[in-house]
């Protein structure tokens, strides 16, 4: 357990620095657990499935709340449009598929029926990022944050581990409005604990630092923490910000990172173009310009491979983050 405090509140983080025996759980499991809890709490919470009940972890909900579960087959546009209808009659539908297809295939339905129309539909985008692995580029969503964050009214959340994904699922079920929750397939490190607070729209400082701020989201927050540990050995003090809410982004936390540290590295399992890091850059450019380095997929498609191999290949491993941080610090001038 590492005792980090933020605004006087302790974050109760897991001991994240021991890479060898850290507990690993897929973030999608957190979604599955959160969904069951949300469904048991409120019978208006529905789960609509497009032929991926096990992969998206809707299976437990199907068992626990059978009357609130709807299967529609391989039809992601229907998923959104039908959920819009259900939501306008007071239901709170969670719709799930791979992020590539929902919201990938259903983008215009999301824009019109969920966002412009302001309906209370919740998208769960599973298997996001290159860490999907052997399925290859067709199934590796690395543009989904971009296409969701650009739509007005959307809330976009990318939690850092399974425990936080569960909390996010519950919080997003309770807020009113269109939502995109993104999570991944593979096991990833648990960095928070049950007691770690979670609030939509509020970034969390997981590690204090003054030379450079590493602003990360999703499962790569763990890599950011390990990178910060490495940087400390070289005398560089790195702040690590878990920037789980991509929209609406915590402007104050980003501006503070720029002012306090004078350099930023953004880290996401997504195209660097138009993703979380781009939003950070927009905020920084408008408020307090400092050098920024971007870790993510560099305008390329993914490919088949082992998940860890792909994270390294696409420059999102710890070494790449350390190098980017050093470069950002050097650019301070």
């Amino acid at each position, binding site marked *: 357990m590492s005792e980090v405090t933020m605004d006087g509140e302790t974050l109760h983080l897991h001991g994240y620095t021991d890479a060898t025996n850290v507990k690993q759980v897929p973030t999608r499991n957190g979604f599955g657990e959160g969904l069951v809890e949300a469904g048991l709490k409120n019978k208006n919470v529905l789960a609509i499935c497009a032929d*991926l009940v096990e992969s998206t972890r809707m299976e437990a909900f199907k068992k626990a709340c059978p009357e609130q579960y709807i299967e529609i087959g*391989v039809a992601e546009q229907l998923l959104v449009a039908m959920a819009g209808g259900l939501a306008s009659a007071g239901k709170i539908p969670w719709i799930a598929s791979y992020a590539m297809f929902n919201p990938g295939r259903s983008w215009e339905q999301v824009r019109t029926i969920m966002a412009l129309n302001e309906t209370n539909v919740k998208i769960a985008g599973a298997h996001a990022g290159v860490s999907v692995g052997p*399925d*290859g580029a067709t*199934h590796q969503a690395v543009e989904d944050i971009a296409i969701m964050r650009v739509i007005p009214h959307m809330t976009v959340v990318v939690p850092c581990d399974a425990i936080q994904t569960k909390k996010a699922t519950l919080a997003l079920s309770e807020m009113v409005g269109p939502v995109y929750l993104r999570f991944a397939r593979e096991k990833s490190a648990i960095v928070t604990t049950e007691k770690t607070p979670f609030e939509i729209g509020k970034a969390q400082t997981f590690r204090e630092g003054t030379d450079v701020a590493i602003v990360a989201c999703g499962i790569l927050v763990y890599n950011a923490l390990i990178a910060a540990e490495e940087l400390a050995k070289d005398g560089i003090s790195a702040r690590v910000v878990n920037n789980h809410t991509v929209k609406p982004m915590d402007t104050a936390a980003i501006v503070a990172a720029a002012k306090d540290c004078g350099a930023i590295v953004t880290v996401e399992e997504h195209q660097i173009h138009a993703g979380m890091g781009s939003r950070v850059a927009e905020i920084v450019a408008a408020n307090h310009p400092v050098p920024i380095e971007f870790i993510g997929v560099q305008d390329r498609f993914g490919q088949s491979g082992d998940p860890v191999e792909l994270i390294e290949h696409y420059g999102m491993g710890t070494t790449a983050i350390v190098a980017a941080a050093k470069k950002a610090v050097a650019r301070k001038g």
Partner: protein
Amino acid sequence: MSLSQDALTQLRVKANDVRQGIIRALEAAGSGHSAGSLDMADIFTALYGSVLRHDPNNIEWADRDRLLLSCGHIAPVRYSAMANFGYFPVEELLTLRKFGSRLQGHPERVTLPAVETTSGPLGEGLAQGVGMALAAKLDKKDWRVYVVTSDAEHQCGLHWEAMMTAGKFKLDNLMCIIDRNFIQIDGSTEDIMPLEPLGDKYRSFNWEVFEVDGHDMGAILETIEKAKQVKGKPTVIVANTIPGKGVSYMEGDYTWHGKPPNKEQAETALRELQADRERILANV
């Protein structure tokens, strides 16, 4: 066109080779889709071995027939058929789904041009087939377009837009072949989202409909030949298949949709397939 018994036997043996290649590739990959790949082995063998106008040594041949695999997840059957009909060495199948391989988890045209198009996201093949068939008509060319689709792809809206369009343009150079195995990821197609009466749906969209046992090589070839004779309409062949065909413990079990055999399971499968092969040869 009716093939000699000898030629038919040869194709059946090839289909067996294709199945063995699928098992080896999936086992080596450690992930991937078994059921649909195995159940389309006879049809892919018929296509590459007898139906298609193609040349593995000249994949850019402008007058080649186009074969599109819409349900890209059953890539192993296409890869194995391609390897067994001379597109690349059979050993390359063991690179399936691995980093740097041309045999991506789902087919990609940029890495392996002979697959004609990138697929995996369901429901997109027929629409591209319509475009290709229209191009052939515009250019007054006689090459044909074959689109292999799964049954669950009929839950995707785009597929129906394409069906309607093929009817409108009377694309008799377009043939759709459906892997009617009645399974999808979450269970039976008829429980998840009923498709029947499937043939009637095509008929009402102005298609000519055929049905065939997807594991009867002679019938497959005969039906495709009949479908090729149809004028003024697109044609569809509903191929009734058994998911996992050829491997006893997989047959009919939807849970094999997206699982590979492990080492032991692969050995059992290869033993069964080898016995099948000997049976095919003994019947000559």
